[in-house]
């Protein structure tokens, strides 16, 4: 069933971008915007990009003006480090009519160089921009949303069952997102708290590194389950200090994504933790990874936020020591095991 009048836009021809384009193509025609020549040529020739074969009603363009003229609802699926530049590039073509629903998990630090973040660095919340904030800052768009959840692209591409949260303070945006993304095997949930959803989707990367490490050290499912629970507690706690309600953290985009990422051996974050636990030197891993795991930057950001707002985030802070202060991984995990916390679900009750 394709909606003849409407053509949805997707930005970014990475593996997830292609999967999203395919998802939407079940409901309507899709125009994929990318400036990468190789991707454009592949799509033209009907070849797969990043291993994903695009459906027939997905067309591609590198013409920003045509793209924004054709598509009034746009789904950017970009890497967080490129996000601002690419949105900025598109800004002059965007109008008040456009709606943007992004699928990028990550922070933008604009004014701050992530390499400069050391153990004493303090970061203000206002210097940590979520992708929806970037859109509002760089464009005239007001109606912004995001989709986030346990969305491993390979599974979705195989048509396996999955779901996502569309978060926006605008019901209109939620409905637009649903119309585009929802299909038989892809379930859509709504959440009003876009920033909470964005934050939780990023924070879970930290726990994925820890999960990889635990796995690598030979611990079993019990240990992993404990990590996930305590990881969630830490995420909610941090979220509350930064001003978010726990709701987003307890939903599909929070706990849902957390469980998936901590169990998936394919994720870069998990692999990073695993490799460290196997005794590989951290500096070597970091310099050899072509695409550094998002979680590394997130650990730094959280550490710097904790410095500013004086909160304790044992898992994140211990990972910081392991990654950047030569703390042996075994010592780090031992420290966490002996961390003086005995209450189970304290993070919902107590006052922040």
């Amino acid at each position, binding site marked *: 069933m394709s909606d003849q009048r409407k053509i949805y836009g997707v930005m970014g021809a990475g593996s997830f971008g292609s999967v999203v384009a395919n998802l939407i193509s079940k409901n309507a025609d899709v125009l994929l915007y990318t400036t990468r020549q190789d991707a454009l040529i592949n799509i033209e020739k009907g070849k797969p990009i990043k291993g994903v074969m695009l459906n027939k009603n997905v067309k591609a363009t590198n013409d920003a003006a045509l793209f924004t003229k054709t598509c009034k609802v746009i789904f950017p699926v970009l890497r967080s480090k490129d996000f601002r530049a690419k949105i900025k590039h598109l800004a002059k073509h965007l109008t008040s009519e456009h709606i943007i629903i992004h699928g990028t998990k990550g922070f933008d630090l604009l004014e701050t160089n992530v390499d400069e973040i050391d153990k004493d660095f303090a970061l203000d919340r206002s210097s940590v921009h979520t992708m929806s904030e970037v859109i509002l800052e760089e464009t*005239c768009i007001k109606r912004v949303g995001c989709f986030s959840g346990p969305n491993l692209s390979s599974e979705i591409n195989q048509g396996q069952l999955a779901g996502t949260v569309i978060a926006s303070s605008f019901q209109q945006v939620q409905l637009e997102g649903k119309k585009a993304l929802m299909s038989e095997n892809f379930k859509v949930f709504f959440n009003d708290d876009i920033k909470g959803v964005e934050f939780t989707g990023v924070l879970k990367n930290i726990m994925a590194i820890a999960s990889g490490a635990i796995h690598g050290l030979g611990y079993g499912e019990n240990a992993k389950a404990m990590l996930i629970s305590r990881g969630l507690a830490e995420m909610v706690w941090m979220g509350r200090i930064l001003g978010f309600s726990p709701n987003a953290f307890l939903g599909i985009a929070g706990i849902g994504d957390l469980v998936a990422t901590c169990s998936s051996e394919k994720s870069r974050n998990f692999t990073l933790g695993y490799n460290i636990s196997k005794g590989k030197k951290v500096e070597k891993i970091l310099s050899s990874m072509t695409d550094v795991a998002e979680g590394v930057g997130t650990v730094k950001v959280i550490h710097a936020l904790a410095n500013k707002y004086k909160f304790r985030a044992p898992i994140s802070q211990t990972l910081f020591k392991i990654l950047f202060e030569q703390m042996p991984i075994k010592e780090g995990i031992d420290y966490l095991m002996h961390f003086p916390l005995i209450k189970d679900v304290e993070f919902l009750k107590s006052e922040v």
Partner: protein
Amino acid sequence: MKNDWPILQLTDQQEAFIGQVVLESLQDLKSQLKKPISYKDVLEKTVYKERGRIKKNPWKVDPEDEAKIWSAYKARLAKFYTSDLSSDELLEKEEALAKQIIGGYAREMIGNFNKQAYQRAIRVVPLFLNRILNGFQGRFLTGFFKKNYRLRDKIRLHGDFELYKSLDQKGTIVLLPTHFTNLDSMLIGFATYLTGLPPFLYGAGLNLFNNKIVGYFIDKLGAYKLDRRKKNPLYLTTLKTFSRVAISRGVHTLFFPGGTRSRTGALENKLKMGLLGTVLEAQRNNYLKTEQTKIFIIPLVVSYHFVLEAPALIRQHLKREGKEKLYLEKSPFGGFRNVTRFLYKFLSKGSDIVLSYGTPIDVFGHQINNKGESIDQNGQIVDIQKYFFDQGKISNDNQREAEYTKMLAEKLIEIYKKENIVLSSHLVAFTAFQIIKKRTKDFDLFNMMKIDEDTTAISYDLFTHKIEQLIDQMQKMSKAKELKLDEIFKYSAEQIIDQGLNNVGLYHSKKVLYKDRLGRINTDNMNTLYFYHNRLSGYNLEIHV
């Protein structure tokens, strides 16, 4: 091009105006009701609340037959549900009663503006004030009033008035000021006259009409009446619709988006979404019509050295301690004596008032250029109409408009901070309070209010030193357009301190800040010191004291 003042249609087309308010109010109500539609709850709640108000909290301005009217409504309502009416008949009767009540409210609000009375009143304002001053001259120190004091000299206006005047021809202006004192309405009404703009329709608390003189002026200057006691669903709907219809019909309007006077003395950091939302809805409704009139918002920050009600306001704030209770508000302008005394105080010495009119914005917070176009953060022209689009055309979506309203509120709060013109009195109060706070162990605001003279005293040298630090910081912020500084900031720290001490809360019975007999800076009232101090809160200036 408009040939006449838009506000005049409230009198020229009064019946049409009220008719539209009634119709749209009813539509709004209906859209909020669950199906099957029944006004029973709304009507019963309204009648119950109104009868309670009349009994518990009557005011001089209330019509005498009010109790009777509402008793009759009650009886009528009771009859609806005891007689055998079909559901259609019942709905018809309910709607008729709702219409009648809404119509009554709309009539009460509308006031009676006319051009001649306005022109008379605006001429009388300065005459009236001069008369008061002349009256005092005989009784007070001779020579004190050598200068001919005029209201005009006391009010300083900052803003791009040529631009505002050109916007007056291009669309509807909504003026959104901060709110510190009941004097605001009258003052802004008069200031607007000085700017050369046509009169604005504005909402003024009905309580102000309890005072005949104040009531006379605000009425003639273009007020419609708001009654904060009436918190029933029909009244609130009528009020919002009234504002929306007025704006949508092109009447330049003024209201206080903070809803009430700042109790703490701080700039507004939270706005009321209800009335602000009517601006968004009016803009959407305009785009649904053929004329497509654009709405221009002008934020306005008023700075006073002296707020008459400061002691009462801050007391209320401290009493509440964060708990919002219903306040039975009485007019602080007790009678003629109080008003004249205040005006005398205000006019006779130093106490200037500065009005800082901001850059106009559209309902989405974009700046407006001299063609009336909206300009986004990248300097591009934005066609704001399409923010109301759904599937390629304008749609009615109140949830979306409510979100836009929140965005507008955030923008306004940001603008207030930037347009705020800092006066010397704000700075001295801020500095003194912070010094006392920082050096007091276990500082507790509620106990601070009772401490003695020696505990509050600050050496003049220390005070000057801290003031200089703050001036440095504020100059930087002023350059970065984070706030604005009054003209006095061109002078030396000593001069700023002198002016500040001479003006801060000048006429409160307990002195806010003064040089004591040992030459120290001291206060007799931590409450009001806190009030004036708060004006500079939110700028993170504490770290520079």
